[in-house]
């Protein structure tokens, strides 16, 4: 997938996401123990690892839903972890999709998409409304624009949630186990939307164990365990010839 290729790391291009020696403690528990990684513009990175490996914590630190104990994170050239950074401006550019969808239940699908652009970016209603329509039809839900989330299936809700994140026109999309709360028959419809997004060149960081998606769309797989990055590489090499025992053992469990 040529259009997904990261630009040559000639030292001049700025990575879209850069994590440097990230540590995070929850009381006595060390969730992250020195994670460093980079995601290049247009790159699709899948983060895998056993539960409790810190992958969600790492993802949530990128838009500062979690604050690191130490370490630094940049999105483009802006430092997320710096105290005086206007985190809201960064969050506008970093879309996030949650395991539990988190759609706003008191708003229709269309209103879910319109809320943030109108109150954060002060875009006029005609524009946010037209954009909501376009995004909903892009995720195949044009006919559900006026439905409330409770009247949508899990797969439909997650597609609306993706569209809601896209409505802010983000440069990066973070996915935190987007299909783990879904019934098996609904996983494909969500992955298809993510696949389209990857093909269009969106920079994506996905915490997920969907190997099919990894093979089809990921440029790179990062394996995390016990708060550390154990190894990273293209999907084929990680899945077929993992370099570490821990990776091997984990893959045996989930494949």
């Amino acid at each position, binding site marked *: 997938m040529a259009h997904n290729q990261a630009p040559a790391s000639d030292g001049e291009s700025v990575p879209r996401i850069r994590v440097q020696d990230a540590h995070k403690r929850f009381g006595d528990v060390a969730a992250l123990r020195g994670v460093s990684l980079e995601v290049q513009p247009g790159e699709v990175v899948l983060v895998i690892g056993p539960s409790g490996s810190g992958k969600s914590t790492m993802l949530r630190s990128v838009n500062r839903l979690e604050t690191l104990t130490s370490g630094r994170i940049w999105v483009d050239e802006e430092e997320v972890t710096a105290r005086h950074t206007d985190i*809201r401006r960064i969050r506008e550019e970093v879309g996030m999709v*949650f395991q539990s969808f988190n759609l706003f239940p008191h708003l229709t699908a269309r209103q879910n998409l319109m809320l*943030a652009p109108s*109150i*954060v970016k002060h875009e006029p209603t005609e524009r946010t409304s037209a954009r909501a329509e376009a995004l909903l039809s892009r995720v195949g839900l044009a006919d559900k624009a006026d439905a*409330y989330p409770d009247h949508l299936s899990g797969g439909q809700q997650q597609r609306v949630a993706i569209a809601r994140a896209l409505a*802010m026109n983000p440069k990066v999309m973070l996915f935190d186990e987007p299909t783990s709360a879904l019934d098996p028959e609904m996983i494909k419809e969500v992955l298809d939307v993510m696949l389209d997004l990857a093909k269009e060149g969106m920079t994506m960081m996905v915490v997920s164990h969907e190997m099919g998606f990894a093979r089809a769309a990921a440029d790179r797989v990062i394996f995390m365990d016990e708060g550390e990055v154990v190894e990273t590489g293209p999907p084929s090499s990680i899945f077929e010839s993992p370099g570490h025992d821990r990776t091997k053992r984990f893959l045996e469990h989930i494949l």
Partner: protein
Amino acid sequence: MAAVDDRRRLEVSDGALIPARDDKAGFSAWRISFFGAIGLLIALPLVSPKPFWEILRFIPDGVLRTFQVTVFSIVFALIIGLFTGLARISRITVVNRMATVYVEVVRGIPLLVQLYYIYYALGQFVRVPRLTAAIIAMSVCYGAYLGEIFRAGIQAVPKGQMEAALALGMSRTQALRRVILPQTFRIILPPVGNEFIALLKDSSLVSILAVADLLRRGREYAARTFEYFEAYTIVALVYLVLTLFFSKLVAIMEERLGAHHRSS
């Protein structure tokens, strides 16, 4: 999980007068009490018009005054309660502590004592009209209770809602106003309805400040004619009809909102 528990606790917090949703039987307790009371209010004046019809003509002023006290108090109490609830979840320690102290102090003092205190004790320094004092005391008291309901209601909204709003670039205030509070209002509607009904009943306490509410009018009538049994029977029946009417109204509103949106 915690959210579910919170919601359950909300519904049983105050001895709920709200009729259960499945209470559709022809002879439900609500129907027997409500139509029984209305029946008596019609039958008694017909059977013996002399005291009862006179009493019924004497008390409407009092009903209006009771409404006035109740409506003004609940409106102010809701405003106080909203801000108290927000302060109770505030991360600013001073604000948080002040609200908590207010809630503890007010909940620890009987409403009757608060009424005396605001009208007579503070009245030594600032003289306010009886009705105003009554409304202030009721609002301050119920504001504390409603503050706790608002706090629980805000905390009952799943954490992911705030996270999703923040992740979209909203400020905490925007998220609160546009995402959290609209959901809170739905959650707290039944307990707020309960508080409204409780306030309606407690408003009878203001009669000790000689505010001419429903109870006071009944007492005035009885004091003149010595027909205590008749006067207070009518007063009790009118209170009963009012509270049962509003409890039904709250139940219907709750059902409407529930049908429109049933949260996860």
